[in-house]
């Protein structure tokens, strides 16, 4: 098993593998996202209270989910890179960051837009939005730290420490913000008893999450390939031709 892992972690092998995988993520991602969009905008019924504004949930919640998911992935990749000194893992963390930050921005923007018809203001300091905002700061800090180093190895390892410290803090931040206010609708999707949204209205949500996940798989494969090429600049396997 370890042999396979080390083989995969070798740059030329990873480069080829990711190139093969990318379309297998990409096309299903496109199809799934389109399906979810159609389902969310057309097929799903409007909400009894919020009307059609409710449909914003189908892009807001998946974005928020991805923003947190990617941060965790980034932190795990950084930890793997730091502990086992696998450069590919560091490259994966670097590749994931801008994608995660984009989803965080999207979650904030759609959350804010949804807030206007829901609560009457463009911004509210509720637990979810505030947590997303702080997460954006964490992403930006990570990317800022990375870019402040000339030495790529130092950049990798310093930002890895930051990512690990950040991911440990995320539950603390979440809990503290949650404690700080309770204006936002409680997590209706993950409530253990009967959810407060009808199941029929949740399908587009889950499909969109799947679509975004596939999209992330595609995007990170492509970015990681670029990262590998950049880091392996002077390696022999490159010079021999791909």
């Amino acid at each position, binding site marked *: 098993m370890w042999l396979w892992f080390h083989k995969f972690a070798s740059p030329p092998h990873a480069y080829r593998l990711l190139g093969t995988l990318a379309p297998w993520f990409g096309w299903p991602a496109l199809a799934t996202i389109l399906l979810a969009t159609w389902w969310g905008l057309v097929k799903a019924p409007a909400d009894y209270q919020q009307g059609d*504004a409710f*449909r*914003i949930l189908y892009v807001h919640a998946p974005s928020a989910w991805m923003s947190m998911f990617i941060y965790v992935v980034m932190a795990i990749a950084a930890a793997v890179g730091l502990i086992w000194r696998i450069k590919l893992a560091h490259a994966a963390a670097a590749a994931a960051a801008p994608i995660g930050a984009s989803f965080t921005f999207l979650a904030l923007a*759609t959350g804010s837009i949804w807030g*206007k*018809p829901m609560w009457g203001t463009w911004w509210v300091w509720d637990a979810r939005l505030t947590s997303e905002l702080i997460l954006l700061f964490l992403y930006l800090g990570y990317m800022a730290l990375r870019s402040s180093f000339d030495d790529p190895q130092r950049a990798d390892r310093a930002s890895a420490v930051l990512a690990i410290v950040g991911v440990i803090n995320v539950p603390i931040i979440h809990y503290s913000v949650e404690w700080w206010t309770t204006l936002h609708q409680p997590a209706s999707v993950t409530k253990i008893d009967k959810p407060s949204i009808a199941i029929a209205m949740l399908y587009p949500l889950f499909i969109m999450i799947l679509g975004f996940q596939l999209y992330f798989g595609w995007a990170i494969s492509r*970015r990681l390939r670029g990262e590998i*090429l*950049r880091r392996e600049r002077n390696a022999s396997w490159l010079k021999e031709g791909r």
Partner: protein
Amino acid sequence: MDLNEFFRMGGYAGYVWTSYGLTALVLLLNWSAARRCESQEQDSARRRSGTD
């Protein structure tokens, strides 16, 4: 369903379409950035091996 009704989104057209539009924009930008990241590096790698 009437197409006009669909676009109106029950009066929330601005909010819904802006949100979905932003989503499409973010996905598109990440798509082109990811492709560019890869192809830029491929070009410079090709150039470098060409000048060997």
